[in-house]
């Protein structure tokens, strides 16, 4: 008789709540009424419950399934970030789907499954769980990106995302296999122990390289970033918001844990590589963004650049560096989701308004929306006292303290370049006459709520960041013991 292993589902509770809500949404989709208005509400309720649950579990560390799943403060911090991203995406979706005639139960179910995958990724303590989490998250997102079945761009985004994502998964999995072969385990702690005993093992380093390819794709760092602009542009904007925030946060969660826990012994190796990746990523992202006239594409390159900034924190290392990355992810999630949300609410007669020209004179017609979008963009630039400024302050501060002066200089220069293309949009909104096609503001209560939440988020994080930064540091500290 094989003894029954202990089953501690508590460690999966927040993810299970989200997952269960997804299943519930699927079932509700099968039964009348035929209208799908209520499904968004159900999905939102599930996410909010998971969010509250995650917050209430703070400081209650649980490990389960032979340390494969860790529900520590680190995971919970990311659960909160991911839940916020998912909640904003749901709020933005409700009217957006109806407007585009693609309301369906699958949408919310897939969104919830994807969110569950992200949460799993954040609490992964084992490379196998990392793999499962990434796949659960990505497979749902691939489909979501192609939601607009009748639009070529949407299908194309879905296909590109899928093929390249699967390609990256191949590298990731092979990397896992090699690390398993070298260390005899897929568990982070056991890998760390084995790797420390045999430093500079060839298989481990190759495996690390391949893992970084897989993660590099998910966080869209150069040179694995090329899918991002196309997918961001083609995917439905609400899905783009989720891909840009939630999936990136989840991938960072796993990446930080893998690098700082499992492969800490190789830190001298990976930090040099990531130094270069960070520098190239932020520069490429910012420079190419300048030439973009499509706002969704511009934000895609901007998000690539922000990944570069966050990698700076990872390179700087230590509790300040990693804590800065966590704080930045929180700030970035609100800012980027808000920016995409604002774009989603502006519409031309012939579709979405995504060209920068569409925003000329917006301040005159829709002052509130223009001011809101303007604040999100200013936060992305890093203007005090918004979240983006404080986030960059922490990131670059940690890099300076760790002695990475040149990387900081590159980062600050990049911030200066970035101001150009963000401010261009603001100039269009405030200092240009409306041109060409008439744009209108889509009335959406849920969308307005989402923007309000994001706005409060960036102002709050900018004005009083200290408690949140403390939480971020508390969350990462045990990892780096």
């Amino acid at each position, binding site marked *: 008789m094989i003894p029954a292993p202990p089953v501690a589902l508590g460690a999966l509770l927040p993810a299970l709540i989200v997952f269960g809500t997804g299943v519930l949404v*699927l079932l509700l989709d099968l039964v009348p009424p035929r209208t799908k208005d209520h499904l968004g509400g159900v999905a939102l309720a599930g996410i909010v419950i998971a969010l509250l649950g995650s917050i209430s579990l703070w400081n209650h560390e649980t490990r389960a399934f032979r340390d494969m799943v860790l529900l520590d403060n680190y995971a919970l911090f990311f659960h909160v970030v991911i839940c916020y991203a998912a909640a904003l995406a749901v709020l933005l979706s409700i009217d957006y789907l109806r407007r585009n005639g693609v309301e369906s139960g699958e949408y919310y179910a897939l969104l919830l499954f994807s969110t569950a995958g992200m949460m799993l990724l954040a609490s992964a303590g084992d490379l196998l769980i990392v793999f499962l989490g990434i796949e659960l998250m990505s497979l749902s997102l691939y489909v979501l990106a192609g939601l607009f079945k009748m639009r070529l761009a949407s299908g194309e985004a879905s296909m590109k995302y899928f093929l390249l994502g699967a390609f990256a998964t191949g590298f990731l999995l092979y990397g896992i296999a090699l690390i398993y072969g070298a260390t005899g385990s897929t568990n982070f702690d056991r890998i760390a122990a084995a790797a420390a005993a045999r430093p500079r093992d060839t298989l481990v380093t190759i495996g690390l390289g391949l893992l970084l390819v897989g993660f590099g794709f998910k966080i869209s760092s150069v040179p694995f970033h090329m899918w991002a602009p196309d997918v961001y542009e083609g995917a439905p904007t609400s899905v783009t918001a989720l891909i840009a925030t939630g999936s990136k946060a989840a991938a960072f969660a796993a990446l930080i844990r893998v690098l700082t826990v499992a492969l800490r012994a190789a830190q001298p190796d990976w930090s040099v590589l990531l130094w270069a990746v960070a520098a190239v990523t932020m520069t490429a992202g910012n420079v190419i963004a300048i030439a973009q006239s499509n706002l969704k594409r511009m934000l895609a390159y901007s998000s690539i650049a922000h990944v570069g900034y966050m990698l700076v924190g990872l390179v700087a290392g230590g509790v300040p560096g990693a804590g800065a990355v966590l704080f930045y992810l929180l700030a970035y999630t609100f800012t980027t989701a808000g920016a995409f949300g604002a774009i989603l609410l502006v519409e031309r007669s012939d579709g979405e308004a995504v060209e920068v020209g569409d925003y000329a004179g917006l301040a005159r017609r829709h002052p509130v929306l223009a001011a809101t979008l303007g604040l999100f963009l200013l936060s992305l630039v890093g203007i005090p006292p918004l979240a983006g400024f404080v986030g960059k302050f922490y990131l670059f501060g940690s890099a300076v303290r760790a002695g990475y002066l040149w990387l900081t200089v590159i980062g600050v220069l990049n911030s200066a370049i970035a101001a150009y293309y963000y401010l261009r949009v603001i100039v269009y909104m405030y200092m240009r006459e409306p041109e060409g096609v008439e744009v209108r503001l889509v009335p959406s209560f849920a969308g307005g709520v989402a923007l309000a939440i994001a706005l409060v988020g960036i102002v709050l994080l900018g004005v009083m960041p200290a408690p949140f930064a403390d939480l971020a540091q508390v969350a990462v500290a045990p990892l780096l013991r």
Partner: protein
Amino acid sequence: MEYLPILLTFAFAAGVAGALLGIPLLIAPRRLSPVKLAPFECGKDPIAISEGRFPIKFSTVAILFIIFDIELFFLWLWAMLFRRLGWFGFVEMLVFLAILMLGYLYIWRKGGLEWE
């Protein structure tokens, strides 16, 4: 360096692949024009896809088949150790099957199994 042969194999495979792709890129003359970039089919626009046509409904069924087929080997493993796993295994498998059935129910109700 016990893995040297593997590395060499990697290098060789990657080298050949890279060479095959890279050499033409380097030495082949490239004078691109819209005409050249267009798909060529005896001077006419392509009239059919090169792979030939196939009905989509087969692939739909194939998708469903793969999913349920693959889940089978979890059942197979469980069946092999059925007695030794005891009630715990049985309940676990019931949960697994229930989730699977949920998917089945969903496909069915959504009309995924209709042939026409």
